[in-house]
């Protein structure tokens, strides 16, 4: 039996429920998020609206508080895990309902590096923003990025590294793209704890992305600029 203080999600109206989902995401409550997604679907919300208004908006608050030093990595991971639970329900429905597609991104952690927390967060937020993601996982040599991007017809190549000893490998990938005459075909976004804007510029990336939210905004802006240029 529920405690007196327990919130019955199904008894909340839509606005209250969405705000409650933001709170539950913040607190990493996966089961509650999954339940709430089900309730909104039952109320005939579109999967796209649930994704953007409840999950992505809630995760944006988490991201902002992480950036501002209010939340730390463990809390962000729990929130991400909760969002993943909701997305697992929505993903097949999004494809069926023809949600807007923003572009395709091939993303992976570079060769010699097995750290994937940041990469996974970026992949999840990009997916939430409507990008199709091809996740290469960890420890990727240059050919994984190039072959997959070519095969998949990707718009963006994303590279992640946590170690100062592995981040120079990003330049190997970019230099290989140049050698093969493919550099201008892709947006190249880089990220990871030890990187900074200066490093991104020095290796010839299109942008260094400080966090997942910045990656989403950067990808959206740069792709739309590129489309505008092509249609001009």
């Amino acid at each position, binding site marked *: 039996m529920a405690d007196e203080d327990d919130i019955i999600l199904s008894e909340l109206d839509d606005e209250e429920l969405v705000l409650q989902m933001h709170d539950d995401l913040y607190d990493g409550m996966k089961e509650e998020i999954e339940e709430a997604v089900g309730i909104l679907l039952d109320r005939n919300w579109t999967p796209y609206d649930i994704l953007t208004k409840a999950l992505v908006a809630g995760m944006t608050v988490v991201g902002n508080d992480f950036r501002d030093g209010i939340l*730390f*990595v*463990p*809390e962000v*991971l*729990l929130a991400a*895990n909760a969002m993943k639970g909701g997305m697992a329900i929505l993903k097949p429905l999004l494809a069926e309902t023809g949600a807007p597609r923003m572009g395709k991104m091939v993303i992976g952690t570079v060769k*010699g*590096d*097995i*750290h*994937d*927390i940041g990469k996974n967060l970026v992949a999840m937020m990009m997916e939430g923003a409507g990008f199709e993601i091809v996740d290469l996982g*960890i*420890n990727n040599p240059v050919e994984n990025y190039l072959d997959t991007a070519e095969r998949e017809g990707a718009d963006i190549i994303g590279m992640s590294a946590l*170690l*100062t*000893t592995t*981040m120079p490998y990003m330049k190997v990938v970019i230099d290989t793209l140049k050698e093969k005459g493919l550099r201008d075909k892709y947006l190249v976004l880089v990220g990871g704890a*030890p*990187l900074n804007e200066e*490093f991104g510029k020095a290796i010839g990336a299109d942008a260094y992305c400080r966090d997942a939210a910045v990656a989403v905004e950067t990808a959206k802006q740069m792709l739309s600029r590129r489309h505008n240029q092509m249609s001009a």
Partner: protein
Amino acid sequence: MISDAQLSDQGLAPAGKGRVLLIACGALAREILALKAANGWDHLDLTCLPANLHLHPEKITPAVEAAVRKHRADYADIFVVYADCGTGGQLFEKCKELGVEMVPGPHCYSFFEGNDAFAAHADSEITAFYLTDFLVRQFDAFVWRPMGFDRYPELVQTMFGNYEKLVYLAQTDDPALDAKAREAAARLDLAYERRLTGYGDLTAVLSKL
């Protein structure tokens, strides 16, 4: 003896004796003092910055710079006992600018094992998580709590799922530390390996000063 907690949070002030000042990471204090005593290196004085700077590597270079500027008038020479330590070359550039030398190598795991030996197996050991004597003693303060595992044990798999083994690079042959390191490996659900490295390249580097 100075406590690990103090070396982690506050560091160590110089004794004020000796013509060369070592500005070191607090995680290396015991090892440097042991080498100094064993070799009679009375010309070396030691000050340490808090070891917990490693939780925010971007703070290491400014902290080292401030220490060099603070002490340089009091000593004939200064030597920085840090490797790159996650600064991405920034510490090296800063030391060059300040005209002081530092320990070569990517981090203390590497120079304790020997930079050449470490580099030789670096590619085949990317799934290894390393601990030194200091980090074994301070495992909870430097790994378990900062990662949030005390509050959210379910995150161990999320954060360490891609690792396969914990390698304890032992500076001293201490069965108690061996047992503690083995326990740390079990808590992270990793295989365990111990390598007795001694002080590695650190001895040779300090002996030239």
